[in-house]
C-alpha cells in the first residue's frame, strides 16, 4: 500500500474507532454511576445481541431498516445534499407496500407479490423525495428545510388516512395484507425462532452492493460524486447539476421507502402508524458514522442495531435509555472527530516522512 493510500485509509477508519472508544469510556462512567460493574453490563449486552441466534436475528432485523435509511442519507450527501426526510420516506414506502399487499388477491405468487410491493414502496418513497429534489433543482429551495417539512406532512397525512379510513377498529394499523409477505428467517433456520429477522435483509444487502457499484463503477456515479465534491467542475464536465440533485433525491427517497418493507411485509404483515419510530432519523447517524460509504453504512447499521437491541438486553441492570445516551455520544464524537482526526493523521504522516527523510 502506498503511503498516500495508507493515510487515506487511516483517515476513513479512525473517526469511528475513536468514537467507539469515547463511547465505551462514557458508558463505563454511566454504568458506574448506576452502581453496576461495566464489564458485566457489556458482557450482558454482547450475549443479548451476538451471543445467540435470536439476538442476532433481532440485530439483523433492526439493521435492515437502518441500512436503507442510512444508504438514502449517504447517497444524498455524496451529491452534496442533506436528506433529513428519510423518516417520512420510510413511512410512505411502508404504507405503499401495505396498500399494494392489500390490493393484491390472495394467492398471488410470492415473488411477484413481493416485487410489486417493493416497487410500490420505492415509488412512494421516490415521490416523497422528489418534492424537495425538484424544489431544490428548480428554485434553489433548501432541501434540509423542505425534507423536514415533508416529514411533518407525510406523517400527518398517513396518520389521517389510516385513522380515518383504513384502520382495524381499536388499533392504528391497516388490515393484514393478502399477498406479499416476506418470509422470516426462522421459517428456514429454526434457531432464529421468535426474531423478526426476515429476507428483506437480502434486499438490503443487494441494495448496498448496487449503490456501491453505482457510485464507484458507473458513469452516472462518477458524475454524481463530482457534483458533490465540486459542483462547478462537474458543470464544466457537462453534468447538469440540478438534474443530478433531483434524481439523487428521488433515488434516495426510493431507497428509504423500500426500507418500509422490512416492517410491513417482513414483520407485522400490515402498515401501522408510527412504525418508522425514528429509524429514518437514525439513518443520518448511520450515514455519518459510515462515512457515506455503502460498506461503512452496512457496518454502522449493524452497530446501531446492536446498541438498540443491546439496550433491551441490559435493561434489567441499567435503564435501556443508557444506550440512547451512548448513541448520542457516538454521533457527537464522530461529528467532532472527523476534522481533528484528519489533522492528526496528516501530521503523523508528515512526521513519518520527516523521520524517513532524515
Amino acid at each position, binding site marked *: 500500500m502506498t503511503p498516500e493510500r495508507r493515510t487515506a485509509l487511516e483517515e476513513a477508519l479512525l473517526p469511528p474507532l475513536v468514537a467507539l472508544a469515547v463511547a465505551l469510556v462514557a458508558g463505563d462512567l454511566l454504568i458506574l454511576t448506576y452502581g453496576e460493574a461495566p464489564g458485566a453490563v457489556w458482557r450482558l449486552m454482547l450475549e443479548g445481541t451476538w451471543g445467540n441466534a435470536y439476538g442476532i436475528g433481532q440485530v439483523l432485523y433492526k439493521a435492515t431498516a437502518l441500512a436503507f435509511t442510512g444508504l438514502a442519507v449517504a447517497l444524498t450527501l455524496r451529491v452534496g445534499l442533506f436528506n433529513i426526510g428519510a423518516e417520512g420516506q420510510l413511512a410512505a414506502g411502508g404504507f405503499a407496500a401495505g396498500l399494494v399487499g392489500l390490493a393484491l388477491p390472495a394467492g398471488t405468487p410470492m415473488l411477484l407479490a413481493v416485487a410489486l410491493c417493493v416497487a410500490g414502496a420505492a415509488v412512494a418513497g421516490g415521490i416523497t423525495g422528489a418534492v424537495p429534489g425538484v424544489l431544490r433543482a428548480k428554485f434553489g429551495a433548501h432541501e434540509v428545510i423542505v425534507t423536514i417539512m415533508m416529514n411533518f406532512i407525510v406523517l400527518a397525512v398517513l396518520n389521517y388516512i389510516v385513522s380515518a379510513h383504513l384502520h382495524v377498529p381499536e388499533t392504528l394499523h391497516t388490515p393484514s395484507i393478502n399477498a406479499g409477505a416476506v418470509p422470516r428467517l426462522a421459517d428456514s433456520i429454526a434457531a432464529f425462532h421468535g426474531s423478526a429477522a426476515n429476507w428483506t435483509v437480502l434486499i438490503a444487502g443487494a441494495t448496498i452492493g448496487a449503490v456501491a457499484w453505482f457510485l464507484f*463503477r458507473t458513469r452516472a456515479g462518477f458524475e454524481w460524486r463530482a457534483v458533490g465534491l465540486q459542483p462547478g*467542475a462537474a458543470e464544466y464536465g457537462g453534468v447538469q447539476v440540478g438534474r443530478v440533485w433531483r434524481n439523487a433525491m428521488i433515488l434516495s427517497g426510493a431507497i428509504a421507502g423500500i426500507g418500509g418493507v422490512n416492517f410491513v411485509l417482513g414483520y407485522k404483515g400490515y402498515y401501522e402508524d408510527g412504525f418508522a419510530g425514528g429509524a429514518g432519523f437514525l439513518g443520518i447517524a448511520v450515514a455519518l458514522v459510515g462515512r457515506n460509504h455503502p460498506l461503512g453504512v452496512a457496518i454502522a447499521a449493524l452497530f446501531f442495531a446492536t446498541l438498540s437491541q443491546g439496550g433491551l438486553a441490559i435493561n434489567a441492570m441499567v435503564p435501556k435509555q443508557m444506550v440512547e445516551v451512548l448513541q448520542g455520544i457516538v454521533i457527537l464524537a464522530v461529528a467532532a472527530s472527523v476534522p481533528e482526526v484528519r489533522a492528526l493523521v496528516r501530521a503523523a504522516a508528515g512526521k513519518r516522512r520527516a523521520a524517513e527523510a532524515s
Partner: protein
Amino acid sequence: MTAATTGTGDLAIRIRAVDKWFGAVHANRAADLEVVRNEINALVGENGAGKSTLMKIVSGLQPPDRGTIEVNGRDVTGWSTAEAIRAGVGMVHQHFMLVPTLSVAENVVLGREPGGRAMFDRAQAIRDVESLVASSGLAVDANRLVADLSVGEAQRVEILKTLYRGARILLLDEPTAVLSPPEVADLWRVLRRVRDQGTTIVLITHKLDEIMAVTDRITVMRQGATVARMVTKESTPEGVARAMVGRDVSLAVQSSAAQVSADTAPALEIRNLTVRGARVARAVNEVSLAVRPGEILGIAGVEGNGQSELLDAIVGFRAAEGGSLRLGGADLTRASVRARADAGLAHIPEDRHHRGLILDYSIAENLILGLQHRFSTGAQLDRAKIRANAEQQVRAFDIRPTDPALAVRGLSGGNQQKVVIARELSREFSVLVAAQPTRGVDVGAIEFIHDALRKARNAGKAILLVSAELREILTLSDRIAVMYGGRIVTEFARADATEEVLGPFMTGARRDGAAA
C-alpha cells in the same frame, strides 16, 4: 552566507532552519530568511516554493514544525496572529478580507474602533483614516463603500488596515496579481514612501520585473528551501530566474506570430454577444470577435472587465442575453455545455480549483472529466481504458507524481494545471478557449504550457487566449484585442502591439479603435 548577510542588529525578521509539513507535503525545508529593516525585501520563488507558508509562519497563522523565528531580535517562534499584530507585523493577503457593505473608514478601524466602551465614534474613525491616507499616500475616500471601490483601491484599504494597526513590518502576498499597470506603478510609489517612513516590507512575488523594479534585497526559495540571497542592485533578472528554477530559462518575449488570411472561415465566431453579470446588467456588451484556425487571438485587459462572463457565455455556463455564437458554422448560442464540447470546443478554465478539477478525484479520473461518456461501456466506466489513458497523458505531459491513482489535491499548482491541459488538448477539438492558462504555475511549467499552446495553434486549432498577464498575451498571441468595461475596445496585429500601446486601452484612458 553571501555578501547580503548583515549584522543581526538591523534585522526586522530572522528565520532559522524552519521546517513545515502539511501532511505528506514538505512545504519548508530548513528555510532561512533575513529581512533587513527599512528595506523592501523580495521573497521570490516558483509556486509551491514555500514562500506563502513561510509568511504564514511569520504572521502567526501557522506554527513551524522545527526552527526559530525572531522579530526585532526577539524569539517569537509559534506566536499567535494576535501577538504578531501587537508586535507590528501586518499581512496583506492575496484575497481581500473586507466587508463590502461597510465604508472604507469602517473597514480600516474594524476590530480597533475609536470611541468609548460601547459607542463607536464614526467621525473620529474618518478623521483617523483620512490622516493615515494623507501620510501614507494611499489615496482613497474614507467615506466610500468598499463595494464601490476598484480592485486597486480595495488593496489600498487592506494596506491602510495594517498600517492603522501600527504595522512596522508589512508582508504583501502577490499584491500586483489583480492590478492594472498604472495601479502597479501607484503601489510601488506608496511602498517606497511607506518604507522611507520606517516600515519594513516583504514582497512575495514571482514576477521578475517587479523584483528588479522596487526591491532592495532578494531572497529566492526553491522547493521549500532558501537557495539564494542577493542585493537587487548587484543581480540580474537572468540570475534570479536561474536561482528560482534551478536552470537557465529564456525570458525574452518571443513572438512567432502566425499570419492567417482574413478570408479563412473562422472556427469560432461571436457576434454582438451580450451577457448579464452578477452585478452589472451588461457585463459583456455587444462583443464581436472571430478566431480562425491556426491563430491565437489574445484578449488583454484588467480582470473584472467582462472576461469571465464572456468565457462563461462561450463555454455555456451563462446564457447570452443577445447575439450569437457559432462554432465552425454551427449555431451554438443556446447549446448545453456538453453539446458545445462535443462540437469541438475545448476549455482551460480560469479557476482550476473551482471549475477545472475535482481535487479529491484521482489524476486518472480528472483526466476524463467531461469525457466520461467516451470512457464507458453502457452505464459502466471502462476502468482499463481510463487507466491506460492516464498513463499515456501522465507521460506525454510529464505530470508528477506519476501514479495516476493519486488525488489531484496533493499535486503542485503546475502539475494540477498540466492535468487540465492534458485533458483538454487530448480530446478532439477545433477551438480552444484558454483562460489564465499559467496562473499560479511555476516558471518551468509556464514554458511547457506555452509550448503546448503553440503546438496546438500550429496544428491548425483556433485558440482564444484570455489572460491578465499582458506578458503572456504578448508572448503567445497572433492578434490582440483589449477588453474594457465589457467591450472589445481595440484590436491590434501582434506586430503593432506593445505594453505601452495596450496600457491606455486596458485602463479605459483610450477607447478609439486604432485598428479593428
